[in-house]
């Protein structure tokens, strides 16, 4: 059901009734119910918002059962988690800091989804972005701080874009399925970077394998509790939404995603567009990597800098129903959970992996079409296959 073709505005319950200025005598499909009105009608029209909310609530409920099974009061557990994430200045800053890469990684999954590609590689793209940023920042470390930061970000964008376009090029030229190629590229990036931070890029003064730190002047210090990356990520989310909805490029992306044969017939160069979509996505993930490098202590590339940000991007994109603006609330939720998990651990002894568990359940519930069917019965928006089969 997480279908790129489900536009949020596409609230018509089925193909039977479409609202136009002069209602034509639409013959409803046999058995199709009339479009509901009132509250139910609103809920049906806003399916793309209702379903994720229901999924999140249900996941939290299942999580509550798990927490209780561990002998902890779930209300207390959730309270301590969210009151840290949203209720304290430190916690809010941590939540916002997590949100930045999460929004960007979410966008890195959303854009290819619109083209009918499933980018599982935000993780590797983020890592290559971060290492490129670290290498660039170190090589121009004598320059003024602002310049170093900008150069690092550009290098991160390029690094991520380059890494993602390998998958795009393999897809466009050889028909290699992007899910496999991006996963392989994740592992290859991890191996190469492991070599780099143990070899050429290793800071000899560091006790563990890590890159050189960012120059002090280039570090992005937060304004109050708002990290600098947050406005960047928010603006980019809005820009991507605008790009997909209002520009020729967005139109071309969308057309390919809906029907690549039609797109090809209309003169859109499929191969180029596939590579471009992947490159843009990779650039966003790469930017996330460079922001992590410039903004988060210890301001180095070291093992675990990427955490599971890239994979959380998948959850966020599906939770946002592949809407760019939807990534913002989705990232806020995931960020709050991640930020609060250590407090939860501290207060209750519940392992931070509960967050992975909660996110997995949410992802499961949000992507099961059954949920929408249970709530909306026959008014469920029609689903269709995203899967471009092997070798096409």
């Amino acid at each position: 059901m997480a279908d790129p073709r489900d536009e949020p505005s596409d609230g018509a319950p089925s193909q039977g009734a479409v609202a136009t200025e002069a209602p034509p005598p639409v013959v409803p499909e046999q058995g199709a119910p009339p479009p509901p009105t009132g509250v139910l009608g609103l809920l049906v029209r806003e399916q793309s918002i209702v379903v994720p909310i229901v999924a999140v609530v249900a996941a939290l409920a299942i999580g509550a059962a798990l927490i209780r099974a561990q002998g902890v009061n779930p209300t207390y557990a959730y309270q301590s988690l969210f009151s840290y994430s949203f209720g304290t200045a430190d916690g809010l800053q941590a939540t916002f800091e997590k949100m930045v890469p999460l929004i960007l990684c979410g966008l890195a999954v959303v854009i290819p989804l619109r083209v009918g590609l499933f980018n599982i590689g935000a993780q590797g793209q983020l890592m290559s972005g971060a290492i490129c940023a670290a290498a660039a920042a170190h090589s121009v470390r004598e320059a003024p701080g602002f310049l170093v930061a900008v150069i690092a970000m550009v290098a991160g964008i390029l690094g991520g874009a380059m890494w993602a376009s390998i998958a795009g090029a393999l897809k466009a030229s050889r028909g290699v399925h992007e899910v496999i190629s991006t996963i392989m590229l994740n592992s290859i990036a991890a191996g190469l970077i492991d070599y780099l931070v143990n070899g050429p890029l290793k800071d000899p003064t560091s006790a563990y394998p890590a890159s050189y730190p960012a120059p002090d002047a280039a570090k992005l210090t937060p304004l109050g509790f708002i990290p600098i990356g947050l406005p960047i990520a928010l603006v980019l989310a809005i820009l991507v939404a605008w790009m997909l909805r209002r520009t020729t490029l967005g139109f071309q992306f969308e057309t390919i995603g809906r029907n690549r044969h039609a797109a090809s017939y209309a003169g859109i160069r499929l191969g180029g567009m596939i590579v471009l979509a992947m490159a843009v996505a990779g650039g966003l993930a790469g930017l996330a990597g460079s922001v992590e490098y410039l903004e988060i202590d210890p301001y180095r590339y070291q093992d675990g800098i990427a955490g599971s940000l890239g994979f959380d991007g998948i959850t966020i994109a599906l939770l946002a129903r592949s809407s760019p603006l939807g990534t913002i609330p989705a990232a806020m939720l995931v960020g709050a959970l991640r930020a609060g998990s250590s407090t939860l651990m501290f207060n209750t002894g519940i392992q931070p992996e509960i967050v992975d568990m909660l996110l997995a359940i949410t992802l499961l519930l949000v992507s099961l079409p059954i949920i929408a069917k249970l709530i909306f019965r026959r008014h469920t928006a029609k689903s269709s296959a995203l899967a471009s089969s092997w070798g096409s």
Partner: protein
Amino acid sequence: MEWLQRNRISVGTTVVILVAAYVFYVVNDNVATSMFKGAWFFAVPLVLGALTGVVGERSGVVNIGIEGQMLVAAFTAFFTAAASGSLVVGVGVGMLAGIVMGAFLAFTTVKGLMDQIIAGVVINIVATGLTSFFYRPGQVLSANMPQWDIPVLSSIPLIGDVFFQTGPIALFALLAVPVVHLALFRTRWGLRTRSIGEYPSAADTAGINVIRMRLLNVTIGGIFAGAAGAFLSMEATAGFERGMTAGRGFLALAILIFGAWRPLRVFAAALFFGFTNALASQLQGVINIPQQFITLLPYLLTLVVLAVAAGRVRAPGAVGQPFVKGEGS
């Protein structure tokens, strides 16, 4: 004779490889044996994972979730075995876990019409979440998996050493390959399975219950991924770690494509992967390459192999498309 004529390329390649392997064995039997043993060891979970893919995708259901199936199976197999003190129970529960995960994929995609790729990715993420949340360190198995010497066969030089002095799950993998091959190409079940993967509407017209058959195949196919998981946590090592499948499920997918959705070729492809891996490890002592490059070689090879193979092999016609009765395809 006619059979030889038709399969001359496969038979020829097999003979050439066997001759080369035995020449190597005569030159240096120690290194040859250990390399081929290493190759098969590496290949076992890949063969098993790819067989899950063969059964599912031949029926028209893409399975990206093999990795997750293997991970959950590795987890349940190990912890059941540790808790119950019985290896047999552990392996059995591991296989059952593979089947349950297969059933999940089957019901969400075939019945629920969920996108097959997304369903697979969801399985992987859920598997990671489940296994890392419930993971408890410090468990041990009460006994090691037995090592069997198959009488007669294990005394064959090289082949006996590599394939017939093994643990039970590796032996299961070795047997499963010809069994699935024969089932797929020589039985009524196989013909029907291939037909619902190629052209479900035609199969439906011929009176085959496409939905039921897909549900059944994808579910049962999970047994191989389950065995692969049990192999990883009980036979290859005796312990479970978070994320221990480390991409083997995806390697299995690549092998599935490289092996053109045919069990015997899948077996050959997995051995080729295993051998490359063993070769790289051997070379490490000889020439000076960083250890990281060895570990990422399988992934790089997957990409190269897919780039070469993807254009040459043909996937089952209806793979990835949900079947809705009466909507055609």
